[in-house]
């Protein structure tokens, strides 16, 4: 009897142990298989990033139209290699932008603005969304991704002295270190608010250059600016050995009203000038602002050159924008063939006004771009990076890719 029990117990324990150890060894093998999948994921990431960055898409100029592309690509069709189209990037539905409703049309816009002073609102209906991008790339239901394009050089401007004279500190830093010894080419756009009711605001541009010190900082003074309430916009380009960064800063007079440029159509290059009270119904009707809109392009020596809008006799387009659904908003056409900056100076009263910048092409003010899903919480995310150029500005393109189909062991 004891022998029987002994045999039975030992047999059961033995079989149990065998099954347990087979399971444990299988677990080890499964982990190795999962790691093989991870390795394959990194190859896929590299291939997918090159696929996105090295083809202009179908059609090649889809960034300058309102059509949905048949093939997704961000390369600038005028160039080869890793040179991206500033316009194609504008048409990506940013995952960081919030939605804004324009009361006059009832349409929704993605707000890609980066802080106060520079505004970029793109029509939601014309943006390429993430799920469409997955389909176009052929990775629907198998992979998820997030593509981020970040400027290599961060140029930040702080005001060290508000007036008499105006003092600005320009700090340029790279992803890895200060951008020391870099040349800073800057433009100070001083806004003039006329006293006369019939006149419109205008501006003058003052350009110059300086060099950053060992900490990547350049201190600038403007003796011509004595008024601490002077409205201005400041744009600075930091460049050294092919690496270029852009930064900007604005100061406006105390007012809660402003003009907000809204892109209506990439295909017809139309931008509407909206009153900020008409965005998300944030203010009363009937509030008016006089404006003067001008388009500038950055030349090869980093100065700003004006391109005429409107008729040939005037550089800018002037008018009045009034809040309220019953008051139509003015629209202005922008050039199709070049990136640049739309500068809109506006005036509420003889002493209150401001200036807003809108980049025509994300690279004009070095806006970052984030497109795609959220990698947070994913089991395994592979990343790859490339150095790219967008409109002459150095960016780092990073793709994070993860599998959405889970990991299976075949056998």
């Amino acid at each position: 009897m004891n022998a029987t029990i002994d045999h039975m117990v030992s047999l059961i324990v033995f079989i149990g142990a065998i099954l347990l150890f087979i399971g444990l060894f299988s677990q080890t093998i499964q982990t190795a298989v999962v790691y093989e999948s991870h390795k394959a994921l990194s190859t896929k990431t590299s291939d997918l990033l090159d696929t996105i960055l090295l083809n202009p898409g179908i059609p090649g100029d889809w960034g300058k139209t309102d059509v949905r592309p048949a093939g997704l690509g961000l390369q600038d069709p005028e160039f080869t290699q890793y040179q991206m189209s500033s316009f194609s990037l504008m048409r990506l539905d940013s995952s960081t932008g919030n939605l804004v409703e324009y009361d006059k049309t009832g349409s929704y816009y993605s707000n890609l603005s980066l802080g106060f002073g520079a505004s970029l609102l793109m029509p939601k209906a014309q943006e390429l969304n993430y799920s469409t991008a997955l389909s176009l790339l052929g990775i629907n239901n198998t992979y998820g991704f997030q593509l981020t394009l970040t400027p290599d050089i961060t140029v930040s401007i702080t005001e060290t002295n508000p007036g008499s004279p105006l003092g600005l500190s320009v700090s340029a830093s790279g992803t890895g270190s200060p951008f020391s010894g870099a040349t800073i080419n800057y433009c100070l756009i001083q806004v003039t608010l006329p006293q006369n009711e019939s006149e419109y605001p205008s501006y003058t541009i003052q350009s110059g250059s300086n060099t950053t010190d060992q900490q990547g900082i350049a201190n600038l003074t403007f003796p011509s600016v004595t008024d601490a309430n002077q409205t201005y916009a400041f744009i600075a380009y930091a460049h050294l050995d092919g690496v270029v960064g852009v930064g900007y800063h604005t100061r406006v007079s105390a007012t809660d009203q402003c003009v907000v440029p809204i892109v209506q159509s990439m295909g017809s290059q139309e931008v509407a000038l909206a009153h900020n009270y008409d965005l998300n119904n944030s203010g009363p009707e009937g509030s008016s602002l006089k404006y003067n809109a001008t388009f500038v392009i950055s030349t090869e020596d980093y100065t700003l050159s004006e391109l005429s809008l409107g008729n040939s006799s005037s550089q800018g387009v002037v008018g009045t924008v009034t809040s309220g659904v019953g008051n139509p908003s003015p629209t202005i056409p922008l050039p199709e063939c070049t990136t640049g900056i739309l500068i809109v100076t506006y005036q509420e009263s003889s002493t209150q006004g401001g200036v807003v910048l809108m980049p025509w092409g994300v690279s004009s003010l070095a806006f970052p771009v984030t497109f795609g899903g959220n990698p947070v919480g994913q089991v395994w995310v592979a990343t790859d990076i490339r150095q790219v150029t967008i409109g002459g500005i150095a960016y780092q393109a990073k793709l994070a890719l993860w599998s959405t189909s889970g990991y299976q062991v075949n056998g």
Partner: protein
Amino acid sequence: MPQVTIEYMIMVPVMIMQIFLFPIAASVIMNTWVDSRMTIELQETAGHLGSSIQQLYYTMNHASIASGSLTVELDTPPLIEGHYYNITLQNATNANTSIKIMNVTLSLAGTNDKTSTLVTLGENADWQNNVIFLSNSTTSIIATKSSGSICLYFGGDT
């Protein structure tokens, strides 16, 4: 003696079962590992091949190239776990669109492993449909552009 009988009745069969069980278990576990590796590597190769074809096409499609031929050496492995694989290019284009979609199918010889990937190309892309190339004799992808049309095919040792 009864306990000797029990011993022979129970433990001997168990012992004989072990002789088969351990090798079978080890074999199954390792086959799982090898099969998974093969499948993953096949998928990785298919994806890389598709990406290479697409990059080659867009390079040739650039307007700066009027005509000519470009050869890209493949950096995919000729064998996967000792097996060669068949590469087939098929047309998966939707009739309603002007673009062309190439279905690159890889099937591992001697197994049931098969994987495919879709490659989006422009309307001027051309290739031999349903022709099978063997991985162990295919070392390059060639794109030839003439009269605006780009023909893609595989080449052997260069």
